[in-house]
């Protein structure tokens, strides 16, 4: 299983592929079969007018990103973990927790 993620061209914000298109909230991301994910990645790499730098995040059986990617993807999905940009900003921009730390 994999997630497809990218950044929106116009404002650079992190996006997640859900069955119906791109969403800002990682919790709504679709867990894709490996084959679907690979095909979608190729498709979106060619269609760079909407999103930039798409890539796949491999998931473990429990649906978490594999270990190597864990911290990075946690931060990417939830926003910075710090000071004046912490929870408030994450909530304001719809970045509710998806990966349990």
């Amino acid at each position, binding site marked *: 299983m994999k997630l497809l993620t990218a950044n929106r061209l116009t404002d650079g914000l992190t996006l997640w592929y859900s069955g119906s298109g791109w969403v800002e909230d990682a919790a709504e991301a679709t867990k894709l079969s490996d084959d679907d994910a690979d095909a979608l990645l190729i498709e979106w790499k*060619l*269609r*760079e*007018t909407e999103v930039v730098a798409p890539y796949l995040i491999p998931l473990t059986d429990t649906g978490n990103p594999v270990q190597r990617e864990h911290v990075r993807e946690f931060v990417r999905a939830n926003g910075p973990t710090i000071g004046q940009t912490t929870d408030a900003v994450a909530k304001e921009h719809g970045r509710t927790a998806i990966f349990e730390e």
Partner: protein
Amino acid sequence: MSTPKANSTYDAQLVTNAGDVIPNGWRLLADDETHGVDGPVVLGFDRALRELDGLNGHYGVRINPGDDVRLLEPFLDKLTVIEVAFPGFRDGRGYSTARILREDLGYTRVLRAVGDVLRDQLFYMLRCGFDEFLVKDKDPAEAVTSAAKRFSTTYQGAADSARPAWALRHAGV
């Protein structure tokens, strides 16, 4: 929206610094190829160093990044075309090669940029003394003429005739 075609995918055309598209009369010779009466040829760098001493006439030479251009000094009067290869956008050694040829060795004939030559490098190449470009672009002639006009201010002396800001600021002083 259609997916744009990258400039790097167009066939290269030869353009002068005046923006004229011209035919390329020169051919790069493979190192094991003999040169006869087939017309003007460009020799590989090492071969040129080995053979130019015993040759008469006018030749071209291809300089790759890593070749020491100063080794050509004794043969410059036999060279009509020097091609400087840019195998990738990010490899900037050819800029130094060009300036050494123009400003240090005093080479005055054709200096040509070949390889991965794209629109966004042309301004720098013009300033370093190139006068012909084998450039890949949808509109190669426009790419060269617009590069020449890209910046009205330059801050350093280089191989072109542009006068740096410091010279213009104190002109007439």
